[in-house]
C-alpha cells in the first residue's frame, strides 16, 4: 500500500495544478492583472530530493517533467529539462547548507524562482512570449513566489514527515 502513496500523491498534485488555475483564483483579484502560477508538483519534488533521496527526486522530476510537457504545454523539452536540473541544483545546494526547515523552505522557493526564470527564458528563445523582463518580474514572478511560499509553509512539515518515513520504509 505504502508503495503506491508516493506516485498517487504526485499524480494528484500534477492534476490539481491545472484545476487550481482553472477554478480557484477569483478573477477580480488575480485573473487579468497578475499571473499566479501554482508549482505544487515542483515543491513536492524538491522536498522529496531534500528529505527523501536524491535518486527518487531526480527520477520523479524527469517523469513528471515529461508528463507536464506532453499533457499541458505540447512542447516537449522545456520542463523535461528544467525539473531534473533544478532538483539536481537543489541537492547540490543542500550539501553546503544547513538542513533545517527554514533553510530548506528558502532553497525550495529559490528553486521555484529558477523554474519560472528558466521557463521564461526558453519561451523567449522559441518566440512564444514577448513579455518584457520588467513586466515578467512584476506581474508574474513576484505573485507566483508569494503564492508558492504560502504553499511551502503549509506543506513543509507534512511533506517532510512523509518523505522521511518513505525513506525509512525503503531501507527496511
Amino acid at each position: 500500500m505504502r508503495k503506491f502513496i508516493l506516485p498517487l500523491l504526485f499524480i494528484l498534485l500534477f492534476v490539481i495544478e491545472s484545476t487550481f488555475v482553472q477554478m480557484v483564483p477569483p478573477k477580480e483579484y488575480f485573473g487579468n492583472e497578475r499571473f499566479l502560477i501554482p508549482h505544487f508538483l515542483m515543491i513536492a519534488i524538491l522536498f522529496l530530493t531534500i528529505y527523501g533521496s536524491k535518486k527518487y527526486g531526480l527520477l520523479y522530476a524527469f517523469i513528471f517533467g515529461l508528463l507536464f510537457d506532453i499533457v499541458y504545454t505540447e512542447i516537449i523539452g522545456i520542463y523535461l529539462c528544467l525539473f531534473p536540473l533544478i532538483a539536481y541544483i537543489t541537492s547540490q545546494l543542500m550539501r553546503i547548507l544547513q538542513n533545517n526547515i527554514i533553510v530548506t523552505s528558502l532553497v525550495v522557493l529559490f528553486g521555484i524562482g529558477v523554474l519560472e526564470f528558466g521557463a521564461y527564458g526558453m519561451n523567449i528563445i522559441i518566440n512564444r512570449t514577448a513579455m518584457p523582463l520588467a513586466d515578467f518580474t512584476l506581474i508574474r514572478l513576484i505573485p507566483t513566489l508569494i503564492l508558492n511560499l504560502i504553499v511551502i509553509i503549509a506543506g513543509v512539515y507534512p511533506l517532510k514527515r512523509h518523505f522521511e518515513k518513505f525513506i525509512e520504509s525503503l531501507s527496511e
Partner: protein
Amino acid sequence: MPQFFLNKRLIILLVSIIILVSLIGFSLRERENVTWPEQFLKDMTGWVQNIVAGPTQYIAGFFENVQDLQNTYTENKELKSRLDDLAFLEAEVQLLQKDNAELREILDKEESLSQYEPVQATVVGRNPDRWHEMLTINKGSRDGIEPNMAVITSNGLIGKVKSAQTFTSTVQLLSSMDPTNRISAVVQDADKDTEIFGLIEGYDEKRKLLMLTKIPYDAKVEKDQMVTTSGYGGVFPKGLPIGKVVEVTPAEYGLTQTAYIEPGADLYDIQHVMVTKISSMNPEIQKELQKGEEEEDN
C-alpha cells in the same frame, strides 16, 4: 581520473542538450495531431482531471451562487430595462430568418459558410504554466472533434482545437502566442456595405487585447466596430463574433494598419464551451478542389 569524469559529465551534458533541442524542434513544427503515446497520456490525465474537476466545480459553483444572490437586485433592474428591447429584436430576428430561408430556397443554395453544428463541452483543466494558454475539454474525436475547429462561448470566439484525442481535446486560446495561430477576420461596418479584412495575429499580454493585422492602409476602421470571423480560411465558420475595436495604429512599416481588439469572450474564466463543426466548405474552394480532381482524372 578526475579528467575522465569531467569529460563524461561534459558529454552527458552535450548529448542532453542535443536531445533537448531536437525534442523542442520536433514539437514546434506544424503537426496535424499529436503522436499516439502523447494522445494516450493526455487521455489518461484527462480522465483523472475529470474526476477532480467534478467536486471542485461543485464547490466553486456554490460560491458563485452566493455571489450571484448578492448581485440579484442590480442585475434584475438592468435586465428589466433590456427586456423591452428584446421582444422587438426577437420579432425582427424571426422575420429575417424567414426571409433568409425563403431567399435561399429561391437561390437553390442550402448551405452557407456560417452554418455549423455546435458540440457542447466542459473545461476540465487548464495549462498551469500560463505561457501557452491551453484548455482541456472533455470531448474528443469520439464526439467528432478534429484539430483546427473553432471553439466559442456564448460571448464569442475563444480559440481553436489544437489537438484531439479520443476522449479529450486541447484548445488553444486566442491569447496564446503562437505564430501558427492566425484567424481570418472581418471588421463589420453597419453603415456602409464595405467589409474590411485582416488577420487576428498576436496578443498584447499587458493590455489584454488581440491584434488584428494586415488591414489595408486606406481602410477606415473606427473604435467600437465589431470584428467577426470571415469564414474564408476554410476552417472556421463565418460570422463568429470575436470582439470590438479599441484602437487603430499604423503597422511597423506604414503599409498596413493594426487594430487592437477587446475580445468579447472572457479568456480567463471559461467553464463551458462549444466546438463548431463546420458543415460546409467555402463554395469557391470546393469548386477549385473539384476542378483539380477532374483534371487529375483526365
